[in-house]
């Protein structure tokens, strides 16, 4: 498969997704980047911005199994991973493992910050290891496996914020903003008229996704761009005037990988500086901790990243 054909495929993918999702092209791109990197993403958005629709649509267009987990404070790890149930066949009883919703290709873990730390860690462990151990038995999760966890930036009372060490495991933190006037007009017009959803074509399959994940890692990057990435990440550790803590080397790896995925999505055979600058925000925004002074000024981590990109050149 040539890169031109890949670009065509991705364009078809975007077109199919746009039949359901109006606008939010950048969000769709970032979600696809996370999938191509075989990594997970954290989506932060207000309610009603189409997060579930987006993930469902992507799963349908890519012919992947989709599962949704609505996190609540009473959700138990077994509700996510699965449990052993007693079954009786021909008078004989035995334990049978009933798979939980995590045994899908794409998982939407809605409002992950509402689940207890115990449940959160069960999900995060499965995300990291791509396997589940229950009653001394290990069950491998089907590939490709991708978790899109969501967080509500409001209504933080009674929630269990993900610790920084856990948040670091998500490759991207994607911010979903409100649609523009034109986009909202189109959304309101379409969804107030159309009762049923349009049938979507299947553009890619599970094997294609796996092949694309392999291709992503093969995209070449110049040495000076790798140094550029490292400069960006390492400077966050010395910016004591605005940051309490900077990003770890995981951020360097993540940024290079995300840049490679973006290059592939754009049909390029090499990583460009534009890819790195664009991916710096979703890769690093959740890995930086602002100090009190910066918070007092009302700065966000995006502002800090903008400042860094202005200062540093490859």
């Amino acid at each position, binding site marked *: 498969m*040539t890169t031109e054909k890949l670009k065509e495929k991705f364009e078809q993918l975007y077109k199919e997704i746009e039949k359901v999702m109006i606008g939010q092209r950048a969000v769709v791109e970032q979600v696809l980047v996370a999938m191509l990197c075989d990594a997970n993403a954290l989506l932060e958005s207000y309610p009603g911005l189409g997060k579930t629709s987006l993930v469902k649509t992507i799963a349908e267009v890519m012919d992947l199994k989709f599962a949704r987990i609505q996190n609540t404070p009473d959700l138990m790890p077994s509700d996510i991973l699965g449990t052993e149930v007693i079954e009786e066949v021909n008078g004989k009883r035995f334990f049978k493992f009933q798979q939980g919703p995590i045994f899908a290709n794409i998982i939407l873990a809605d409002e992950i910050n509402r689940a207890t730390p115990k449940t959160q860690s069960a999900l995060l462990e499965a995300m990291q290891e791509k396997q589940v151990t229950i009653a001394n038995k290990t069950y491998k999760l089907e590939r490709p496996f991708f978790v899109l966890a969501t967080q509500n930036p409001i209504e933080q009372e009674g929630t269990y914020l993900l610790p920084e060490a856990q948040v670091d495991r998500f490759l991207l933190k994607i911010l979903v903003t409100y649609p523009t006037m034109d986009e909202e007009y189109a959304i309101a017009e379409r969804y107030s008229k159309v009762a049923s959803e349009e049938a979507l074509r299947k553009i890619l399959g599970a094997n294609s996704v796996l092949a694309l994940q392999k291709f992503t890692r093969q995209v070449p*990057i110049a040495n000076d761009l790798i140094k550029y990435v490292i400069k960006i990440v390492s400077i966050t550790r010395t910016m004591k005037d605005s940051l309490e803590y900077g990003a770890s080397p995981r951020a360097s790896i993540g940024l290079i990988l995300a840049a490679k995925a973006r290059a592939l999505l754009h049909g390029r055979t*090499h990583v460009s500086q534009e890819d790195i600058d664009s991916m710096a925000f979703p890769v690093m925004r959740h890995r930086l901790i602002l100090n009190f002074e910066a918070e007092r000024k009302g700065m966000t981590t995006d502002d800090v990243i903008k400042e860094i990109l202005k200062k540093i050149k490859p």
Partner: protein
Amino acid sequence: MVTFKDALKELDTTRNRVLFITNFLKSVILFFILYLIFLLINIPPYLALPIIVIYFVAQLRKEIHKKQWLDIESQHPILKERLRTAADTLTEDNIIVRKLRASVIKSLTTIPLSSFINLKYITKNLFAISVLAILAVYIASTGFYVIDVGGFIKDLVTNFNLKDKLLKHQVPSSLTGKVKVGDVNENQAIQEINNQLRLRADLQNLTMNEYKSGDKTFEEMLSKKKRVYIRTYFSKIRSLT
């Protein structure tokens, strides 16, 4: 079929040749400028040559060691980011890298060799060299200079040497027993006579005042230091004879 490595090698060689020519022309211009300056300030103009040779070597080294692919990409935007990515990933082999190399080679074939040479720049430099050469020949033939820096430096050197020799109240080295070979023509005998002549001159100056009053004996009027000088003088003359 041209391999990518061969293509990079050829590109690098072409670039180095072009760098050599452009740096050479730049150095020749600087040489003539320096030559003219030295002529105008009456300093030997051949001194410009070693300076320019050092400059040429240093500049060429600096240019060659610059990031060559970035340099080429800046001159040919069609290769932007692709050339150095392909050059940095020579050890990798996969579909995407092969596709990248193929696209770079395709782009390189569309770039003419003449695009590496800035003809306008070379023409300007050759014109400047011609003008400077004519000027240098003309000024050298007339012997014209604005400031005589060379002469000033020569005088400075000469004066400095004499000054050394004319230090006041220096006891002649023959009296101190420390005859310095090389003080005067490296000849000890001549040094001795020279010291004596100096001593005679010293004595003349010393005795002039004493000669005016004739009441006391000459010896009584002299200070001890002067008496030592006279005694040593006569003993030396005696030893010579």
